């Protein structure tokens, strides 16, 4: 097994997804299966290979550093589950 139960719980926490013990048991098997399968990449020597960053050689596009958007707070809040005035509402964070 590439990942054990504790690792499944740890990465679920990192990913901010609540999982039950039953789900953790199933995921331990599934994630290990997928990671064992991708381990075949170890066969390839990539010591002197650059990672791929683009399809065709092109320089990154840049634009003037100026405001092109804004004054749309109502639009941004329109789909929020809970708002107060122009704020997103979340449970209290600091006691």
């Amino acid at each position, binding site marked *: 097994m590439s990942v054990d139960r504790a690792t499944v719980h740890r990465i679920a926490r990192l990913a*901010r*997804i609540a999982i039950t013990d039953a789900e953790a048991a199933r995921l331990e098997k599934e994630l290990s299966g997928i990671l064992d*399968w991708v381990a075949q990449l170890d066969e390839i020597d*990539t010591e002197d*290979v650059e*990672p*791929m960053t683009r*399809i*065709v050689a092109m320089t990154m596009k840049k634009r003037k550093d100026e405001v092109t958007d804004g004054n749309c707070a109502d639009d941004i809040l329109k789909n929020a589950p809970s708002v107060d005035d122009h704020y997103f509402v979340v*449970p209290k964070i600091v006691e």
Partner: protein
Amino acid sequence: MADPTDLTIAEAREALKRKELSATELAQSHLDAIEQANAALNAFVLPTPERALEQAQESDKRIGKGETRPLEGIPLGIKDLFATKGYRTTACSHILDGFVPTYESTVTANLWSAGAVMLGKLNNDEFAMGSSNETSYYGAVVNPWKRQGSNAKLVPGGSSGGSSAAVAARLCMGATATDTGGSIRQPAAVTGTVGMKPTYGRCSRWGIVAFASSLDQAGPIARTVEDAAIMLKAMASHDPKDTTSVDVPVPDYEAALKQGVKGLTIGIPKEYRVDGMAAQIDALWQQGVKWLEEAGAKIMPVSLPHTKYALPSYYIVAPAEASSNLARYDGVRYGLREPGKDVLSLYENTRAAGFGEEVKRRILIGTYVLSAGYYDAYYLKAQKVRSLIKRDFDQAFKQVDVILTPTTPSPAFAIGEKSGDPVQMYLNDIFTVTVNMAGLPGISVPAGLSFEGTPLGLQLIGRPFDEETLFRTARVIEMAAGPLVKPVDWWSNAA
């Protein structure tokens, strides 16, 4: 006149111009077809009849005044991954429940300004993660095709399964789709439609729900190669809002169609003859070689030695990028919220309830491979393998103009048949995923029927930004294969 829903986009364009048919009639006949079919096929998750008729009336006015735009009055379906202003867009995920964008994706904006008519939003695998459309929160889509002598419901492929099913069943004339590992070409192949994934950067990704940003690309699904060419011309553009959108002219793809394949060299990669390849897939591939040879192309074997590593490296890159992209769904800014005792449990409960099993699996894989100490061993390694895959293609394209392969390892399978083992499901994309890893254009074109009487497709792969050569080669296969029979209508008023 024949049923307007049987027309191709090219034919409808002529009929509208000659005023043999109004845009309103054309839209209405498709809306009627959707109403009759959708209970059985589940292709549309949100039909938008009022919008369709409003746009069609505008088209009729313009046609009357002689101010026709390139897609004037053509009714299309839109994959639910494209943000449509004022119309619910959920990527078919529970976590985007009720999300109504206040903006329009660049690709759909291009289509509307070209005069196209929106029939509604199409079903897809949740966040485009799947190969069978079975992971949608809105339920599976049913393929209009059935196996001979069997009533089993087949999958329409995925993730653009709503697009492929709707186009095949004549519920829309064409559809937008997206392709991260095969999600345009694979569903097109198993529904007898044409699916074009253009070069990465050809279509803007702005306003498309992100899955894996270095692989995602939009393209059309249509019933003919010509229709796909007409649609891509309208969808593609340079967009300053997407830094990876490329500033190169969009050619007139339609003009390329008549050029044939005389003088072209077609590469046949030996690594695509995988172990245990179905005899009928191999036979179809050989048939494709023969057709192109007879049409005057030169055939040459090529080698793409890193082919077998494309799928495993994809299943590092795509989940890694997905885990990062999907971090934004937190129950705070939009979509679903499940309460929690503090903000952390609000996030965890929302994401537990909002994401489906496959999406969770990929987020967790992605989180794992990007977690401290693993980045070099997984993501960096996979990006290096991508360079090798790309290098294989660069070498091959020094000798050949186009590469011919099968699109899928098998015809459409039945709903539920492959959902037990994630890796078995991933293998459906074995022939398509290399193209995304290298960023190249690829097209799937219907090439015949399986022993079971269901469609099969051939895939053509081209050089970066050389979609024209793919269209002209695909057109030759389409002509040689002959018109595909229409699936027998069992779905109208069936449920």
